[in-house]
């Protein structure tokens, strides 16, 4: 015997109600609950610069993609990125990018994702045009897309066109390290340093990815591993002196760019 029923919401537990008058399904007997929809064949996502990922994370990625697919009528792509894709479980949230040109209900989708996965989601919904503009003008977008898992194949050819006012704004975010070295923890220091050097690589027309930025940090600050920053075991005087010099040099470069840009207009 089969019964089709709906799961209803309860105060402490959700439940499935069965009619009192029924054949079989006796009280106390064990039953199997299964979703009614036929299971679709599993689609494999596309991996970009990911050599390995923990199976539990991959299951979560597939679940997120399934939820978005059900909630949204149409979309261009779903991209998972950020610290979640780094080895281990030291992430704060999962960065989820939904590329769509249609009207979007960002807050309800975020709520639904968080309710179903029980993980904090940083949802960013963008149109294809904004993504393309971001990739050509903003190092953060390039870094974000350098390591990702995507629902559909990503092919983005963009020419780098620095927006110096935007870079000025991004660079300002790295300034607090100069006056607040002692107040910041290792992860915060690393984040601010990474932001600054991402801008530097972008201006030099070099590849902007987590690996290339980490490499640049090691070279610029003469350290063996970026863990020295993350674990807060730096030589303050040496690091801060170099940080100020690098910040000032990038700031001047950005200001020259703004000046040049405003003269051209």
């Amino acid at each position, binding site marked *: 015997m089969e019964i089709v029923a709906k799961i209803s919401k309860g105060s402490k537990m959700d439940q499935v109600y069965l009619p009192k008058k029924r054949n079989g399904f006796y009280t106390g007997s064990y039953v199997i609950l299964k979703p009614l929809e036929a299971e679709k064949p599993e689609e494999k996502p596309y991996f970009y610069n990911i050599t390995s990922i923990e199976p539990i994370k991959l299951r979560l990625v597939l679940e997120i993609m399934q939820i978005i697919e059900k909630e949204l009528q149409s979309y261009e792509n779903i991209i998972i990125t950020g610290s979640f894709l780094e080895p281990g479980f030291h992430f704060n949230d999962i960065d989820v990018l939904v590329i769509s040109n249609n009207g979007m209900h960002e807050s309800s989708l975020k709520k639904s994702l968080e309710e179903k996965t029980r993980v904090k989601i940083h949802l960013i919904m963008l149109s294809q045009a904004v993504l393309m503009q971001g990739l050509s003008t903003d190092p953060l977008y390039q870094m974000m897309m350098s390591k990702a898992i995507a629902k559909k194949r990503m092919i983005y050819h963009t020419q780098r066109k620095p927006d110096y*006012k*935007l870079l000025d704004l991004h660079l300002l975010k790295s300034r*607090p390290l100069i006056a607040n070295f002692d*107040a910041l923890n290792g992860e*915060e220091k690393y*984040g601010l340093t990474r932001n600054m050097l991402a801008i530097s690589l972008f201006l030099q027309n070099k590849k902007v990815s987590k690996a290339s930025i980490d490499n640049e940090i090691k070279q610029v600050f003469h350290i063996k591993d970026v863990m020295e920053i993350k674990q807060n075991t730096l030589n303050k005087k040496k690091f801060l002196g170099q940080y100020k010099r690098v910040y000032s040099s990038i700031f001047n470069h950005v*200001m020259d760019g*703004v*000046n040049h840009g405003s003269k051209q207009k």
Partner: protein
Amino acid sequence: MAQNRNKLIELFIGNLSNAVLHSMLEKAISNNELAGRYRQELITSLSIAKKYREKINPLHEPLPSKDKEYIKDKVIKKVKAGLAVRKAKGCKQPSQQAVGHYP
């Protein structure tokens, strides 16, 4: 390490002015959608300023008027200086008249 109150107020001012300057520069960006996307993650100045405020006495009451006036004046000066540097380099920034006109 215990920090004295004046030092904490100066650090508080530095971070607050950075956050104000950031929000003013954001107004000068033509594509605001792009500029604001990662804002919530990367603005550390405001959260550091809050951390310092939590260490400045009185902790659970508003600061005395004298301190408030001092902080306000210094934040305005610092933001104006930040905008002036950019103006000197040829940037067209939001009007400096806007500085200090926050509720």
